[in-house]
């Protein structure tokens, strides 16, 4: 009697363990709802501009256009749903892919918006006209995240997964006011 009870207990224990393991495996395999992948630029731009140059108004406006033109390390190039089938060259050294569980496409798409100066009208010609589109992207990840993603890829070839909270702590919005202040100061000098 005792032996049959133990057998039954063992069997139940075994199947409970199997069930838990199966659920765990299925949960890890199934794409989680509201999960996205971000293709992030990992390399620095070939013609990085260090600072606003001394010179004429035209020089400054040209610099502004260049700054707008270039994409930079840490900027998010494309947002796709979790499990997206990326292209063969969409990885290091040019890019890293950051997995972001818990974020929706709608939430993540804001990271590919441009930095726009909405106070500038789309009518060119005025001397102090600033370019309306100041930068291709309004947000960028800190370098530490890109370095971590590159390191993980180098170790095991996998992509980095960060939580929404971690991402929010590591993403930075460019400061339009500071950029404009610099440009206007330069224009008036």
């Amino acid at each position, binding site marked *: 009697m005792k032996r049959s009870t133990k057998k039954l207990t063992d069997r139940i224990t075994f199947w409970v363990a199997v069930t838990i393991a199966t659920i765990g495996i299925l949960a890890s395999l199934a794409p989680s709802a509201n999960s996205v992948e971000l293709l992030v630029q990992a390399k620095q731009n070939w013609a990085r501009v260090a600072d606003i140059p001394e010179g004429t108004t035209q020089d400054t406006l040209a610099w502004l256009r260049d700054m707008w033109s270039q994409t930079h390390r840490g900027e998010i*190039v494309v947002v796709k749903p979790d499990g997206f089938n990326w*292209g063969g060259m969409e990885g290091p050294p040019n890019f890293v892919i950051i997995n972001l569980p818990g974020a929706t496409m709608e939430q993540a798409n804001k990271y590919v918006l441009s930095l726009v100066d909405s106070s500038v009208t789309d009518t060119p010609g005025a001397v102090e006209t600033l370019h309306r589109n100041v930068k291709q992207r309004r947000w960028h990840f800190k370098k530490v995240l890109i370095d971590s993603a590159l390191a993980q890829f180098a170790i095991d070839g996998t992509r980095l997964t960060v939580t929404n909270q971690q991402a929010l702590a590591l993403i930075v919005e460019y400061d339009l006011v500071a950029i404009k202040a610099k440009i206007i100061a330069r224009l008036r000098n």
Partner: protein
Amino acid sequence: MSNHYEDNATGEIVFWILMLIVILASTASAVSVRTYTIKASGGDYTTVQAAETAHNQALTTNDSALTFEISGAWTGNDYEGAITIAGWTMDTTRNLIVIAIGDSKATHIWDVDRWACSTGAVTSITVSEDFVIIDGIQVWQNHSGASYIYGINGDGGKRMTVQNSYFRSDQRAVNSCAIRQYNTGSGWTRVLNCIITEWPNAVIAYANAVIPGIHVYNCTVYDCAQTAFWSNSGRMTVKNTIAMSVGNFLGATPQNFWDTSDFNYTSDASITYTSCTPCGANDLYSQADPHTDTVNGDFSLKTGSDAAEVGVDLTGRYSMLTVDINGTDRDANWDIGAHELAAAGGDPDPVPNRRRQQLRILGYIFDSDKYVAVQSAKRTLWLTS
């Protein structure tokens, strides 16, 4: 004897030195051309923007030309968002070509299974560099803003070529347009074999007093409530182009020079060019719609259309115009517009997959030998229940 051998050996050495010089010279002067594939699956990249970011460089310094080739099957879920081509250095031979080919290429009818840039951003494609060529793409602009929305904005980019492409928009924001060229410099921007529909304006040259401006040749414009073509102060030449259901063929206050514009076909009652002599002697006004099925985005010419066979041969200007948007050869008498009616026995036009359009057949009973067959070039759907 020895002299004979020495002569032979000397001759051989000279020959190989010359060969080496020729090879080195040809290598030194050759621009390396590299192609990267954009595919929904199995390509180098899945988006043009990723390719643009990865390969952004001074092509003039690296003595190379790049092609981003879009191919393979796409669906509406694969549509690409806004694209920016900027921060490069190019010239006439060391340039960037973005081209859709095969099943990805635009045709005379909108096709949901071909590649498209479809975005809610203010501008679908921003081109800030000289010498960019865009060929065979679909652009669907659906930004909900009130004004100044663009399909391709040549924003400081000069000598841009846009050809064999299809632009649609359903927002109709005022002062918006499919293709805008701002601040053109030396050399013309070209808009060739393009279809533009449901925009407020088709093409705008905002040239800021810099000439020349834009060539619009063999294009088809439909349903543009403001104007088909508007120029601020640059030149715009419009030839062999259809403009139907437009507010006006030209902008209301043109300060422009419509250099040799002619052979156009429009529903507008007249075209008044400014400072252009001779212009418009062969334009056709107040014309009936020449298209097959505008409701479903089919801008092929109807057989017997008045726009057929009345264009002017522009081979001497642009050799790429010898074929239409579908790649069909233009015959001896060119048609006006992006589409050329194929000669009898010629290749048929491509048939699109309108998978997204609903087919409803209600109130019928089918069985195994009484059915409706819906056929297309791509698939046959048998409706038996």
